[in-house]
């Protein structure tokens, strides 16, 4: 991503940390949604 080539990896900065935080939040949201769907036994139509 850096203009000088891929040999030298730039050091992680705050934005990389923010990306990890965003991934973690997405994973947590997906877990919550999975748990919610477990309550309905994964049925989408009303009985």
């Amino acid at each position, binding site marked *: 991503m850096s203009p000088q080539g891929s040999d030298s990896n730039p050091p992680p900065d705050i934005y990389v940390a923010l990306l990890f935080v965003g991934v973690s939040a997405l994973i947590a949201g997906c877990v*919550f949604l999975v748990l919610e769907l477990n309550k309905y036994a994964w049925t989408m139509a009303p009985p």
Partner: protein
Amino acid sequence: MTFVGKLLVVVQVVLSICFMAFAGAVFTVQTNWKVAHKEIVEQTELDKVAYSDLDTEFNNFKTAINIQLKNETDRANAAENDARMLTQELATKTTELDTTKTELFTQRELAIIAGEEAAERRKEAVAQRVVNENLHTSLNDVITKMRSLENVIFNESIKSKGLIAKHQKLLAEVTNLKSQARANNLDPSPAAVASTQAPPPLVVGLILDTKKGNRKGSEFVEISLGSDDGLLKGHMMSVFRSGAQAGQRAKYLGEIKIVHITPDRAVGTVVDRAKNGTIERGDNVTTRL
């Protein structure tokens, strides 16, 4: 990294955090509609059963109510008839009540009068009670006297019994003596006995009439004296001429015996006659010379 890449990273982080927050909120707060649906279905089933029971009960109740309504209707009709009859009876009773009130008023007046009369009678009773007490006292005294008199009567009855026995004995003796007197040609009558025993009083009368009796020459004379003058049958009287007239002198003419007597007259028969004397009307007669 370009500015746009940095901005997109930041936006991606913010949106990820928002997604996580909404998902967590949904998981935490959102109602479980499936469970709610199941509970509602179960509740509906229970309500249906309860409704069925209630409907059955309602039908039974309706039937019972209809029967009761019919009974109550019959009772109401009967009650209306009774009420009608009672109304008529009430009218009759009202009339009777008026009559009774009138009678009550009359009876009350009578009761007042009777009460006043009773009060007077009570006063009279109190007075009579006092009199009664006095009478009781007198009665006790009289009873005491009566008992003493009963004792006296008892004693007198004993005496009288003795006297009656004595009287019977004396009557037997008198009867015997009368029989003996008749056998001896004696008059046992009290007048004859009295004439023979009691002397005649001293009286002087006149010869009122003379009459020849029978062939033996017995003579009856009527004199002006009777039983009111004390004479009795059987008394002997002397006949004399007083000699008060001129040329006459006092003379004994004879003796008569009273054989019949009235209160103011008497008839005697001559039992002794003077030799030279003739008993005539106007001569005197006396019991003692």
